[in-house]
């Protein structure tokens, strides 16, 4: 919550970024798309949830046997070839688990999108909240079931591509 609100004074019309750019002389009028736009929403979401991606990927990377990388180096692989052929396939379970975290959180999130979008950007979570505030519980539940179905569809297709159970 605080990490999200902290962006507002930074990106606002008289915020640090706009003042700084005006001071340097790059722009004459403050940039309007910095705050309460898709840009600020994505920026805040990335800032909040990168951590959930780093930890699982780091976890699976630290388990990679360093001898494999040495062997690839000895066999004459370039750095890029090592990355594509050894590190990415072995870090796949971590990538998928991190993706599941991020996708489920972002699909259900309405607070971040509401605050950083200035309540101007609609999201699936916002629909449910609006229905709940109107005391239309069955409609809210129907939307929740639809959202759950979409999220499960995305995640099951992800796990179809990479079988986590087998690779862990």
């Amino acid at each position, binding site marked *: 919550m605080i990490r999200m609100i902290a962006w507002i004074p930074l990106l606002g019309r008289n915020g640090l970024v706009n003042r700084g750019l005006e001071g340097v002389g790059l722009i004459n009028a403050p940039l309007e798309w910095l705050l309460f736009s898709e840009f600020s929403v994505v920026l805040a979401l990335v800032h909040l949830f990168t951590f959930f991606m780093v930890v699982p990927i780091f976890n699976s990377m630290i*388990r990679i046997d*360093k001898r494999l990388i*040495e062997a690839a180096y000895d066999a004459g692989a370039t750095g890029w070839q090592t990355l594509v052929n050894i590190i990415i396939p072995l870090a796949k379970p971590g990538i998928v688990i991190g993706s599941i975290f991020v996708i489920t959180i*972002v699909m259900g999130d309405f607070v971040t999108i509401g605050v950083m979008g200035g309540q101007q950007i609609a*999201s699936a979570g916002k629909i449910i909240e609006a229905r709940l505030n109107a005391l239309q519980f*069955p409609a809210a539940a129907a939307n*929740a*079931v639809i959202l759950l179905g979409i999220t499960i569809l995305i995640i099951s297709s992800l796990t179809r591509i990479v079988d986590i159970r087998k690779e862990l």
Partner: protein
Amino acid sequence: MTQDRKSFVAWLQAAPMMLIFALFFLLPLVFVTIVSTWDYNEYEMIPAFSLRGYSDTFEGCIAGLPDLCTILKTYLKTLKLCVLTWSLTLLIGFTVAYFLAFHGRSYSPCSAPFRSGPRM
């Protein structure tokens, strides 16, 4: 110890977590699904089967199909935000994890709990 007994003990060990999971996660989801098929009017829900919750959500969406209705636009917007955030976190997360794993201090306290297997 026989095989049967072993698997029984394994189930017993997993039981508390399974119970909590069923009680606080699966049961509410079942309730939500049930309530989503109830009927409602302006001020109360009516415990009778009806798909009004779903049909009201997509009211007029099929009729005006070439133009997307608000609900579909909202879902597409959410998906777009999701894809953008996912690709950016993946890019940044992978890079950060790479440098932490292969170029970080090898005995930093942060990485200690993740270490396993042979060390170089």
